[in-house]
């Protein structure tokens, strides 16, 4: 170990965590207990020219290599739940399952991704991932009302407010959502909540596109190897009535498609009218599983064996149609995570430099190597 590294470890001794690094390839793991301590870790890292990758459950865009892995698990917990305002302030390290369990007692939901309940709120917000209910409720980004974070400047910044409607200044919360820790590390967020309806059903359908057109505000229209399903919620009479118009098999509750970990997961994102075409593209990929979100434009695909040329062809097909193919997990360093960089890359580069001038925060994670 070089002398510089050993003094970095010494300088971070107060925050040291003896657990695993959540899939981050890092020699030092820290778990600061407050946002000001997160800022302190950034300050120490910057003074050593070191890099940091934050992690919650460690499920998101790994693999990453950094000098320091920063666990958010000491930033867990519900900070301020206002049931009558339908808002909750929650620490980044809080697991989705714990938050939703607390909210469910008041028949509320934060509408966070359904498929991996052990993920953390900070991880979901930083990755910008939205769940299957996006068709009705919009993306996660639309529910992040306030964010408290430590930027690459080692300063504590609050953006937005604990209000369901607010246009006071530039929208820092939405900018941070999906920024993958590249501008700073999120310590807590205020989320907008929704009432959880009393009745939910899953209806099998033959043609997801026509179902999408015929039902009023379905929660989701998903297609997988198991078939196509429409998800409806509301009061019992209305849900039954809507389900009847679809003339498919109705089961109570939401039965989400089954997915399981595969060596590689890719997310195909296309204009919503191309989802059916996207599903046909998946045929070229030897997929273990796929879930297509009709009306949204996302087709997630699990791959066991990756053959780069067909995957590249699907990526180029997506890009030529205004979309993208993003590698979600480890295992494909030769292929690149993002594909073609956005036309706004010069602005993105300046934004990165203006929030993280020393390149401390998850360097290289954004398109264009930012």
């Amino acid at each position, binding site marked *: 170990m070089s002398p510089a590294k050993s003094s970095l470890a010494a300088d971070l001794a107060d925050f040291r965590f003896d657990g695993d690094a959540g899939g981050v390839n890092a020699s030092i793991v820290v778990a600061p207990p407050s946002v000001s301590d997160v800022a302190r870790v950034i300050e120490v890292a910057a003074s050593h020219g070191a890099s940091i990758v934050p992690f919650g459950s460690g499920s998101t865009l790994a693999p990453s290599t950094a000098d320091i892995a920063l666990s958010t698990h000491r930033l867990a917990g519900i900070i301020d739940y206002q049931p009558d305002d339908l808002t909750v302030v929650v620490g980044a390290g809080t697991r989705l399952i714990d938050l939703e369990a607390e909210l469910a007692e008041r028949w509320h939901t934060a509408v966070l991704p359904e498929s991996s309940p052990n993920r953390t709120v900070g991880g979901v917000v930083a990755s910008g991932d939205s769940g299957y209910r996006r068709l009705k409720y919009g993306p996660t980004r639309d529910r992040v009302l306030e964010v408290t974070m430590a930027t690459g400047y080692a300063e504590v910044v609050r953006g937005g407010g604990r209000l369901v*409607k607010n246009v006071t200044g530039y929208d820092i919360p939405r900018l941070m959502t999906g920024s993958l820790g590249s501008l700073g590390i999120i310590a807590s967020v205020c989320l907008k909540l929704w009432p959880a309806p009393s009745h939910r059903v899953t209806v099998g359908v033959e043609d997801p596109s026509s179902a999408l057109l015929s039902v009023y505000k379905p929660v989701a229209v998903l297609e997988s190897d198991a078939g196509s399903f429409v998800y409806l919620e509301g009061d019992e009479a*209305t849900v039954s009535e809507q389900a009847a118009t679809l003339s498919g098999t109705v089961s109570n509750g939401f039965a989400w498609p089954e997915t399981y970990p595969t060596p590689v997961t890719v997310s195909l994102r296309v204009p919503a009218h191309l989802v059916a075409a996207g599903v046909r593209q998946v045929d070229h990929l030897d997929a273990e599983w796929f879930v297509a979100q009709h009306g949204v434009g996302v087709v997630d695909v699990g791959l066991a064996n990756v053959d780069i040329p067909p995957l590249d062809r699907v990526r180029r097909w997506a890009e030529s*149609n205004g*979309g993208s193919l993003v590698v979600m997990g480890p295992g494909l360093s030769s292929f690149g995570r993002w594909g073609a960089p956005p036309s706004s890359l010069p*602005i993105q580069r300046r934004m990165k430099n203006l929030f993280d001038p020393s390149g401390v925060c998850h360097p290289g994670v954004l398109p264009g190597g930012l």
Partner: protein
Amino acid sequence: MTLIADLERLLGPERVRHHPLDLAVFAKDSGVVTGDVVAAVLPATTQEVAAIVRLSNQHRVPIVPRGAGTGLAGGAVPTTPGILVVLTRFTSIGEVDLIGRSVWVGPGVINLDLSNELAPIGLHFAPDPSSQSACTIGGNVGTNAGGPHCLADGTTVAHILAAELVTPEGDIVIVGGEAPDMPGLDLRAVVVGSEGTLGIVTKVLVRLTQNAPDVATLLIGFPSVEDAAATVSDVIASGLIPAALEMMDKRMVAAIENFVHAGYPTDAAAVLLAEVTGAPGTVKVDSERISKIAKANHAAHLRVATSDTERALLWKGRKSAFGAVAQAAPDYYLHDTVVPRTRLVEVMHQIYEIADRHELTMLNVFHAGDGNLHPLVAFDAKEPGALEAVQAAAVEMVKVSIDAGGSLSGEHGIGVEKRDLMPLVFSDVDLDAQARVKEAFDPLGSMNPDKILPQGSRCFDAGGARL
């Protein structure tokens, strides 16, 4: 060559307005701020906008984009002599994607025109500000506009999927995309609501919302403001988010009734206008639930509009509120603070007290469901000291809202009007972070300068001495 000559060579003299009369018209929006316009230009293509931006950079004259000028915060008013880029000629509406429920439109398309155009295919653009028959989609993007129906559907940012943006350096980029979650930072989200300070939006991909199969509009009169506010809280707490939940006080109801005869109960201390949408069964269940909650809170008058004509009349009343105020006084000052909806009653009390103490005529009509207050002060600007008194009271009203956990603006934006109040909500460090967002788009500070952030917000240079 002079800037005007350069602009005229680019656009022709007809689309470069610099006659004193034109300049006077374009120097204001619908608020109380007057600016200084060098020339108002009317481009018709993205390339023309980019060329205008490059010309203004060469001449070092700032640029301010503008739609219909219905904004209230001075966002489209040049505070230092500037070129006003008026986007009302961008009125194209593209082909609707029926599966994705989206369409590319020009920023000059009028909000209500778009929804009317889409009515035959059962879709609409959800944001519906009171000015919707005049305001443009581009202006809605600029202010992240709201409206009564944003309670359930969210403000404009939730309805903009992508935008073509001419950057302050004159480049053309797309933020967001036709596909969701495009790689990289979500610049679309900061462009929406940035009041034309990050670039000029020349094309917008808007998300469209299904028209509801059924709708019911309830008009409910209460003996007190407290009872109406308690009903709002109880409805939300019961797990129901109505499509709209609007409140009006007695004075506003009287003004509206004199103006449009919407059938509002003039003897009530407060009136709620609630709307529920959905499948017919849902609408029946939800409107019964609201009626029950209202009765438990002493509702004295309750009517459910059954016909489209009756519904339209109830909404005409609500949307005519600001016109109705013109009867009370020649000018008005409209607030836009937002508070946690559970704090509505106490903040309302404080706001009435402030208006009384300043001897102001105040009427209230607001988006109660999301805590967005719109105290409206009617006055005569020709009376010496009147505007100053109104503005002094305004600062007090903002402060009581913020003390209750609220914020400066729910849907109108900050512009220049509320700019210097930003430190009431954000720390120096918070404001500096916002100033860096601006700088990332506009390193030279040429695009609609001096808006949103108070001067001196950028307190240290990039790579500076903090570390």
